[in-house]
């Protein structure tokens, strides 16, 4: 499927925990096939759960959905899913990097690790989205994205299955764009769709 390129944004990073699969799916299924910015997703998974969610996303999305592999090159029209039990990072050159370093706040993949790497790789050309979850992963990472002039989006805690994570992100980034899942998808298309 053809997709254009985008000068404004180099990557969209999304993080979720409890309830995250449904939330990410709602957003990704609303993105058009030609969405030009690569989307990278980190979800917390309970140990022992089969990592079926990339297939689930693929069935509900017009975008290409793949499980991230080390040194994969980021391309538009594609969603990259962090594999279970690895940290996922974005490198400046537009490739993905994995690590099996220690968990960060009991999480691997850590949303903060992903978001921070994206902020460091692309600065203001990063858009970060924090979704439903029961812990505070992603708040610090989103703050870093915002500090470097990137776009910060948070799922409205009132609409989140588990409000703690988006609420924590909002406390760190009070000026983040707040919306329900459909609003977030709409905002991503509006800001990053580059029509």
């Amino acid at each position, binding site marked *: 499927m053809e997709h254009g390129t985008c000068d404004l944004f180099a990557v969209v990073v999304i993080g979720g925990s409890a309830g995250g699969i449904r939330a990410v799916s709602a957003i990704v299924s609303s993105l058009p096939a030609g969405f030009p910015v690569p989307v990278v997703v980190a979800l917390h998974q309970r140990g022992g759960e089969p990592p079926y969610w990339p297939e689930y996303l693929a069935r509900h999305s017009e975008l290409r959905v793949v499980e*991230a592999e*080390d040194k994969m090159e980021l391309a538009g029209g594609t969603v990259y899913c962090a594999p279970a039990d690895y940290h996922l990072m974005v490198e400046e050159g537009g490739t993905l990097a994995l690590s099996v370093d220690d968990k960060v706040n009991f999480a691997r993949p850590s949303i903060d690790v992903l978001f921070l790497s994206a902020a460091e790789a692309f600065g203001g050309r990063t858009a970060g989205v924090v979704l439903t979850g029961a812990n505070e992963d992603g708040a610090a990472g989103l703050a870093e994205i915002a500090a470097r002039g990137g776009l910060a989006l948070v799922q409205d805690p009132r609409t989140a299955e588990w409000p703690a994570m988006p609420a924590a992100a909002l406390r760190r980034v009070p000026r983040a764009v707040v919306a329900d899942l459909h609003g977030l998808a709409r905002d991503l298309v509006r800001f990053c769709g580059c029509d």
Partner: protein
Amino acid sequence: MTAEASRGGDAAVEEIEIDLLLEAIHRRYGYDFRQYAKASIRRKVRQMASTVGVQRIGELIPRLLHDQDLFGRVVGTFATPVTEMFRDPPFFRYLRESIVPYLRTYPFVRIWVAGCATGEEVYSLAILLREEGIYDRCTLFATDFVDPVLRRAAEGIYPLRSMKTNIANYLQAGGGRAFSDYYHADYDSVIMDASLRDNITFANHNLVTDGVFSEVHLVLCRNVLIYFNAALQSRVLNLFHDSLLHGGFLALGSKESLRQPEFAGRFADLESTWKVYRRID
């Protein structure tokens, strides 16, 4: 200066500090981390700064240059992290069912576990080979570049609390014995049975700087290459190629791959989920 520009400026300075630190380490101690993947190295260097107790990366340079003992204590930060036994159980099941039958056809088998860290993977392999009845014909080389980590691997002592996961992995990998047959528990530790070490040689080998030391039938190097940049990965994969006998097997981590064009025609894809390749030239 805007906050964003200042943030960007700080980041640029930190990049310089990291480059200088890695250069200093290389010239002083001979370890070459200059071609490690940037995102990971940044995290590890920051962790090191925090451990040593300095605010800025640059302050690590004089500390590490002039304090050899300190360097010895923190160099392990760069080594492959601790893992679990039979990690990715389906991979070990695949090894047992699809690779061991090939190995069984050789009178003597040499296996290299590259980047063995604290040894969990080597002991897993030893257990598997023993259960398949070919351990006595095998020589296992377990290498890593940090001596204290190698010593821990050679000791084979692990926390008791890690065994619950190890046992679950072992069973899922097709193990049929009581896993406790392979270790002795003592307070809050376990020590792997000494007989598992009979055919294992633990040796210091640095994938960045060292060369071929043996021709082997199987190389295991899982979740090590992810820490290297593309150029270094190429160097190491060439080293593995040259260390393998014709028809020998290379097993990488399940999220790594041998997709570089330079290896087309030199390796065949054997198992795409578990990233096992066979040398064909």
